[in-house]
């Protein structure tokens, strides 16, 4: 230790050779690499899926805003007008004009 310190560099003690080989073996094994590949693929597909769903949602949302929202608002107004007329008619006891 002391001799290493005197040399100036800080280095980890040498790993026991047998553990290195096991870790390396594991990390180099086909199972792990296949798992890594699968994880990468899954991430890629998930990203694609998320992006396309987002796009679809955006298109559906804007379409809804343009086509359906004005319809809802106008139908609501019409309903209110009808209600008002009905109320007036019942209040006055005569059919409302128009």
């Amino acid at each position: 230790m002391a001799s290493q310190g005197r040399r100036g560099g800080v280095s980890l003690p040498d790993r026991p050779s047998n553990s290195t080989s096991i870790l390396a073996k594991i990390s180099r094994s086909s199972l792990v690499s296949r798992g890594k590949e699968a994880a990468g693929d899954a991430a890629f597909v998930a990203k694609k899926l998320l992006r396309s769903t987002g796009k679809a949602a955006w298109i559906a949302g804007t379409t809804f805003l343009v086509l359906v929202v004005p319809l809802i608002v106008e139908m609501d107004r019409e309903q209110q007008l009808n209600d008002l007329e009905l109320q007036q008619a019942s209040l006055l006891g005569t059919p409302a004009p128009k």
Partner: protein
Amino acid sequence: MATTVPPPPAPAPAPAVDAKVDYFNLPCPIPFEELHREAMMSLKPDLFEGMRFDFTKMLNQKFSLNHSVLMGPTEIPSQSTETIKIPTAHYEFGSTFIDHPRLLLWGRILTDGRLNARVKCDLSENLTFKANAQLTNEPHMSHGMINFDYKGNDYRTQFQLGNGALLGASYIQSVTQHLSLGGEVFWAGQHRKSGVGYAARYNTDKMVATGQVASTGMVLLSYVQKVSEKVSLASELMCNYLSRDVTASFGYDYILRQCRLRGKIDSNGCVAAFLEERLNMGLNFILSAELDHRKKDYKFGFGLTVGE
């Protein structure tokens, strides 16, 4: 909200059983060029981008003046797929003279020099003369056309004469109480093109179905269903056999007491809505929206119409 979904059309009442069609007393069909009138009304509102203001002043019963201002971007045609827009502003002055129902004179002039003029005149009980002209200060862009329409008892026929040696004729005949069939021929001498077309239209008071085929490869089918007094739904299928492009569109048309709302969606990814709201007597507010998702082209407009 449940009311947004129009109720399914009520089952049609059983048709009156009269197998005997009175072939000598058929209704007059509508003109050949207005065959798709109902579908066009619902599916082709005049969408615009920017701001517009229209003012109409009736000077007397027959004569009116029209001022309108339109500001906003206009698309200029280009080869590239991207649309190029330049900001423009126009003022349009127009006058209309209507001596109902015999004579109509209509003229519009824009600040950039474009002039539109129309004449419609009843020469006799059955014969109508129509003329149409578009003049611009660019060469070869001016058009003129003259039509003679003859309206018979259960048929209509039209003869057309235009510049560029354009000749055309059409004929439409009522076949039964609801069905009418028609045909047209045209010859464009300048482009050395000629063609024939056939059309059929079936209308009852609940629905209108039309079909048209022309030798240019165009096939147009449309169907309009009147769901109720206020609501009608329209669909249209247009395909060009030669260039192999097909467009299907579907639209709704709501005519309410205070407003008229038209919406449409088509297979090109284009969504459009057009709202005309009556704010007051003779004061209308217009909102127009058009989204083209494929081209990423979004158009919004608002306007005001004063006087009617």
